[in-house]
């Protein structure tokens, strides 16, 4: 079987549009999801029992059900209660809600990774709890989970491919369209896969770079 990529050339802009859609849906879901994740973590770690149960419940439900099912529910089940979301909104909301649960757990791991002695040192100096979090805990916590957070970004980007099943015109969707039109299935999948790989590799390298510049103080391992 001879591979021939020439047939794909007329579809290069479709690939790039798909890639761009995947990228911006990922960015929206990462930014919004990280913000909601903070609230979820605060609720889960907070003093109010009802809120704690609610946030814990949310996180566990999301993390223990497939993203595919979550997207189906948002896209196909919500219209039954009168909420009609287009593919872009459905995918953006679905990935955001999903990502929020995972980032909340990453924040928890981060805060728990900071040795309790650092908080005690802050207390012993007469600092208030909010000051201890702001000036003492946040940076080491962020540093300890920075790789997990950037990894989550890459996972999210790859998970955006699931948007194709609710007809979001992202990269996998574009790839399938090209494949169905040209019958060059292997070639189309190869190009689509390489585009995912390229973006993921750039993200991975950039995070590594960011880690070394942002956390220059961390000379070895965990703090």
């Amino acid at each position, binding site marked *: 079987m001879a591979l021939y990529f020439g047939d794909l050339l007329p579809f290069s802009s479709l690939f790039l549009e798909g890639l761009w859609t995947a990228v911006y849906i990922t960015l929206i879901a990462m930014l919004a999801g990280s913000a909601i994740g903070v609230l979820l973590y605060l609720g889960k770690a907070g003093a109010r029992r009802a809120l704690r149960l609610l946030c814990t419940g949310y996180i566990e439900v999301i993390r223990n059900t497939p993203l595919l099912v979550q997207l189906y529910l948002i896209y196909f089940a919500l219209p039954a209660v009168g909420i009609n979301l287009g593919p872009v909104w459905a995918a953006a909301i679905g990935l955001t809600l999903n990502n929020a649960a995972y980032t909340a757990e990453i924040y928890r791991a981060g805060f728990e990774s900071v040795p309790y002695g650092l908080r005690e*040192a802050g207390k*012993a*100096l007469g600092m208030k709890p909010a000051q201890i979090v702001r*000036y003492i805990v946040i940076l*080491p916590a962020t540093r300890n989970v920075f790789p997990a957070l950037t990894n989550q970004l890459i996972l999210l980007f790859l998970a955006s491919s699931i948007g194709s099943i609710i007809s979001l015109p992202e990269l996998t969707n574009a790839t399938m369209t090209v494949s169905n039109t040209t019958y060059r299935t292997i070639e189309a999948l190869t190009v689509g896969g390489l585009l995912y790989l390229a973006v993921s590799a750039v993200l991975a390298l950039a995070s590594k770079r960011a880690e070394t510049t942002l956390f220059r*103080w*961390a000379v070895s391992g965990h703090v």
Partner: protein
Amino acid sequence: MIFVNDLHKKFGPNHVLKGVNCHIREQEVVCVIGPSGSGKSTFLRCMNGLESITSGSIVINKHTLNDSKTNINLVRQEVGMVFQHFNLFPHLRVIDNVMLAPLRVSRISKEEAHAKAETLLAKVGLAQKMDAYPGNLSGGQMQRVAIARALAMDPKIMLFDEPTSALDPEIVGEVLTVMKDLASEGMTMVVVTHEMGFAREVADRVIFMDQGLIVEEGSPEQIFASPQHERTQGFLSKVL
């Protein structure tokens, strides 16, 4: 200066302090010795509210620690603490470790905090390490920074929780020297330690604790040369 009256501390069913009484005077250097598990660290940690008190009372400079009207953060500003594992803030340079509390708690100006931190770091012999991060220091250097950090709040009392136990033997001396200087300047100090040499040389009074109680206390000469209590004798025969 510090009055401890019938102090009890329980961790769940574990009765760690079983009625500790003691009075620490201004400018006194008190070393607390005893086997591990005797409650000496817990006793020290109760003195700045890092552990809550189950019953009894601690009064420091007229602040009653377990009184709900007492602002514990004000007491802590008068009581500096140095930990076994230093607990330096890893993301802050040495100078910023020392400046943090003066800036955020005492709210003095940046210039003033900087000048003060510089003076204190010079005092502990680390002026040249101002811009280093804690991760690049040796254990002895880290502990000296931790002492400077505690001193930056101008405490009236300094608590030391086994300050040299995590250090290699050859660098214990540099930390003890700083502590000796501090003692000779008239700082009130309570030191939980296994350094019997330091206790003998620097302490005004040595307290021997075992099983949650002060078993015996007295001048270093008394405690080390002629301990009265059987348990003190047993402990000292093992460590000396």
